[in-house]
C-alpha cells in the first residue's frame, strides 16, 4: 500500500490562542517501505498518526492511498498508539485478540496466532493475567500483538518499544525486521531512538519542533541486517545526529 500525505495542517483550538501542531507536512510511504519519524517531544508526531488513522480530522490537507484521495486510512491501518490502552477487564490473551474479534476474524486462527506471538515476545505464561498484573513493557507487547493481529496493509506504530529494556527492544526490532521482510508490510514508526530508526528504516523523516514541519528526510541505504557497530552505520548515525541537533538548536 502506498500512502501519500500532502500539505497537512492541523491546529488545536484553545481558549487563549490556537495551537498550531502540524505545519504543511508532506510524507510518503511506498508500498513495502519502512519509514521512521523522529522529532522532539511534543512536536506533533502522535497528532500526525491520529490524522492518518482518522481519529482526528485535520484543519486542511490531503491523503492519498494508491493515488486515490481518501478522508483517512482507518480501514487500512493497524495503529498502535503511544498508550497501551488494554481493557482492564480482559485478560492478556483476549485483549490481544480484541481487534481480530471485532473484525469478525476466525477466533481459532486468531488465538493460534496470538499464542505464537506471545511465545515470540516473551509473554508465554502470561496469557491469563489481567493487564494490571503485567509490567509496562509487557502491556506494550500485548498491545503490539493486538495491533499485528488486525492484518492491515499499513502499520502505524507510535513508539512501539518505548517501554522496553535495550535487550528486549533489540530482539523485537529483529523480529519486526523479519516480519516486515516476510510480508512486505508498509510501516510508519515514530521513535526517539536513533539506533532503532537506523537499524530498521528505509527512510527517516525528521520533524521540527512544534509546529511540526518536515525538516529533512534521510535515506538509509545500508544493506540489512545492519550491524550497529559497523563503521558505515556509525557514519550515518553521525549524519542523523547532526541534522537532529540542527533542528533542536533552531528551536531556541
Amino acid at each position, binding site marked *: 500500500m502506498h500512502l501519500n500525505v500532502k500539505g497537512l495542517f492541523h491546529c488545536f483550538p484553545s481558549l487563549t490562542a490556537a495551537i498550531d501542531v502540524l505545519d504543511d507536512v508532506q510524507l510518503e510511504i511506498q508500498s513495502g517501505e519502512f519509514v521512521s519519524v523522529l522529532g522532539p517531544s511534543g512536536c506533533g508526531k502522535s497528532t500526525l498518526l491520529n490524522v492518518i488513522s482518522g481519529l482526528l480530522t485535520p484543519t486542511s490537507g490531503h491523503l492519498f492511498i494508491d493515488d486515490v484521495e481518501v478522508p483517512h486510512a482507518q480501514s487500512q491501518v493497524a495503529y498502535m498508539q503511544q498508550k497501551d490502552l488494554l481493557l482492564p477487564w480482559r485478560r492478556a490473551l483476549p485483549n490481544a485478540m480484541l481487534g481480530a474479534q*471485532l473484525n469478525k476474524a476466525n477466533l481459532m486462527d486468531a488465538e493460534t496466532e496470538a499464542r505464537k506471538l506471545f511465545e515470540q515476545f516473551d509473554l508465554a505464561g502470561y496469557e491469563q493475567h489481567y493487564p494490571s498484573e503485567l509490567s509496562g513493557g509487557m502491556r506494550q507487547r500485548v498491545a503490539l500483538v493486538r495491533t499485528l493481529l*488486525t492484518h492491515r496493509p499499513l502499520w502505524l506504530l507510535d513508539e512501539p518499544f518505548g517501554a522496553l529494556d535495550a535487550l528486549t527492544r533489540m530482539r523485537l526490532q529483529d523480529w519486526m525486521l523479519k516480519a516486515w521482510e516476510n510480508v512486505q508490510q508498509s510501516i510508519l514508526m515514530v521513535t526517539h531512538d536513533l539506533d532503532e530508526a537506523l537499524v530498521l528504516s528505509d527512510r527517516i523523516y525528521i520533524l521540527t519542533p512544534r509546529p511540526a514541519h518536515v525538516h529533512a528526510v534521510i535515506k538509509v541505504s545500508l544493506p540489512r541486517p545492519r550491524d550497529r557497530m559497523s563503521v558505515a552505520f556509525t557514519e550515518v548515525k553521525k549524519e542523523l545526529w547532526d541534522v537532529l541537533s540542527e533542528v533542536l538548536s533552531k528551536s531556541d
Partner: protein
Amino acid sequence: MINFFRLTWLPALLLVLLIVVWELAVRAWAAPDLIHKIYPLPSGIAEAMWSKSFLLLQNSWVTLQEILIGLSLALVLGFIVALLIFYSSTLERLLYPIIILTQNVPVFAIAPLLVIWMGFNIWPKVVVAALIAFFPMVVNTVDGLRSTEPDLIQLFKILGADRWQRLIHLRIPAALPLIFSGIKIGVTLSVVGAVVGEWVSSEVGIGGLGRLMMTEKRLLHVDTVFAAILWLALLGLMLFMAVSLLERWALRWKHAAEARYNLAEAKEA
C-alpha cells in the same frame, strides 16, 4: 478469616451486651402484663422465632418472591430505559423528569392504589418493590455508560468496531462497577418496597412478613412482630451479600488491579 473474626467480635460483643441490658430493663421496669404484648423481650423473640418458625418461613418465602421478581423487573426495565436515555437525548429530556417525579411520589401513597387496581395478590407488592429499586438502577446505569474512557472509544474506532460492539465489549463492561452499586442500593430499597406493599394489602392467607407484622401486632404478639423484623433484616442481608458475591466475581479484574498496590487490604487509611 482471622481478619473477619477481629472485625466481628467487637460488634458481636456489643450486640450481646445490648440484648442483655434490654432483657433486664424490660423485666425490671415494664408492667408484667404488658411484657410480650407491647414490650418485646429478647428471650420472647427467640421463643417466637422457634415456635413460629414455620409461619415465619412461609411468609419470608412470599416476601422473598416479591423482592426477587420486583428487583428483576427493575433491573431489566432500568437497563433498557438507561440505554434509551443514553442513546437519545430526546428520550432523555422526555424520560428523566418523569423518572425523577415518580421518585418523589412516596410509595406509601401509590401502594394502596396499586392494591385496588391489581387486587389482593403478589403483584402490587412486586410493583412497589420494582418502582423503588428502578431509580437507582437507571441513574447508575446511565452514569456507568457515560463513564467510558475517551481513549478506549478511540481504540475501538481504530479497530473498526461498530456501535453494537462498542456497547457490548466496551461500554457495558466499563459500566459494570456503577451498575452493581445501583443493584446494591436497589436490593435494600426493594425490601422496604415489598413490606410497604404488604402493609396496605389485607388479604387472607400468607401475605408476607409485612402482613404478618400487622396481624401479629393486632393480636398483641409483639415478640412475633420482632421475630418477623429479624427475619426481614436477615433476608435483606442475605440478598445484599448474594449481590456482593456476584459483584466480586464479575469485577474480579478490579481486585487484581487493587492488589497491585495492596489497596484491597489497606483501604483508605
